[in-house]
């Protein structure tokens, strides 16, 4: 068996067990047939590339379908919910700071929530992850509902929650990258953005 076919069979292990048991062998056989029946080399490469590019989305869809069958929530809404949950630390930290300022007159910048490491997680990493998964499923949904990728439907039906989560997480990331004059934990110079502040503090290991 050619190496690429063996590698493809290994990649099929990424699918959920139940789906793999039901369809894994058949998917592998169909892939073998597709390659075996294509005489032109560059077209075989396109087949391989297309399968590799679509694999993450297909795998994610099957995992989320398994959640859907248990919770009866659609795939798009499941992903939107997960994406929104990833943004809760950002809203929680912002709310805590506001409450602290109103109740005690002082910001909560001295707490662990505003340490460089924690900031890096709730203002950069989690929103980035949220945006990535929301945008990926949104794009895959739009592609699935259109014949040609060049004519992707801009708003596939049922994807409003996904679109909202994507925009929200992108806004938070933009805040991190572009918002300046932020009172970062260690009184950064004027004009420092959140991102620069976090990176500077993490890289200099400032523990004050």
């Amino acid at each position, binding site marked *: 068996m050619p190496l690429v076919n063996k590698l493809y069979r290994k990649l099929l292990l990424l699918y959920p067990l139940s789906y793999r048991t039901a369809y894994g062998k*058949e998917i592998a056989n169909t892939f073998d047939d597709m390659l075996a029946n294509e005489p032109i080399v560059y077209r075989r490469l396109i087949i391989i590339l297309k399968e590799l590019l679509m694999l993450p989305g297909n795998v994610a869809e099957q995992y989320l379908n398994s959640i859907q069958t248990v919770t009866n929530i659609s795939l798009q809404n499941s992903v939107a919910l997960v994406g929104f949950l990833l943004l809760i630390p950002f809203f929680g930290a912002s709310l805590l700071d506001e409450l602290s300022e109103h109740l005690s007159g002082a910001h909560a910048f001295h707490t662990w929530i505003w340490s460089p490491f924690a900031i890096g997680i709730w203002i950069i990493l989690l929103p980035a992850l949220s945006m990535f998964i929301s945008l990926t499923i949104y794009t895959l949904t739009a592609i699935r509902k259109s*014949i040609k990728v060049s004519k992707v439907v801009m708003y596939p039906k049922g994807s409003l929650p996904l679109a909202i989560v994507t925009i929200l997480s992108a806004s938070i990331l933009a805040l991190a990258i572009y918002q300046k004059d932020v009172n970062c934990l260690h009184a950064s110079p004027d004009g420092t953005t959140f991102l620069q502040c976090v990176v500077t503090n993490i890289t200099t290991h400032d523990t004050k």
Partner: protein
Amino acid sequence: MFDIVFFDIINCMKRSFNHLPQVAFNILLALALKPRHGYEIIQQIDDDSDGKIKLGAGALYSSIKQLRESGLIEEIDMPDDTRRRYYKLSREGEITLKHELAYYEQSLKVARSRHVLPKTYASR
């Protein structure tokens, strides 16, 4: 005969403006003539769409799973070929396909009457 009428009534009651996804429709169309296995379905869809739709193995079986769960297609045994799994339209699948084709036929009629078809299709 009764089951065809029964499914027809049920489908009319269930039918809204939500039509089948494009891939699902193409799979049903590919199975309209005879049962096929996965690679045959991919080839048939490629032929039916004049090469415009080139389905991958992963995407195909995602749709096959959904169609089986919806009861629109069934798996059958082919004694002559035990290596592959064959699928065929169920009764409900036949009726659903019939309704989808009727919708597209009506849409074509309307498009022709309004002279909005591209020139390559207008004369067909």
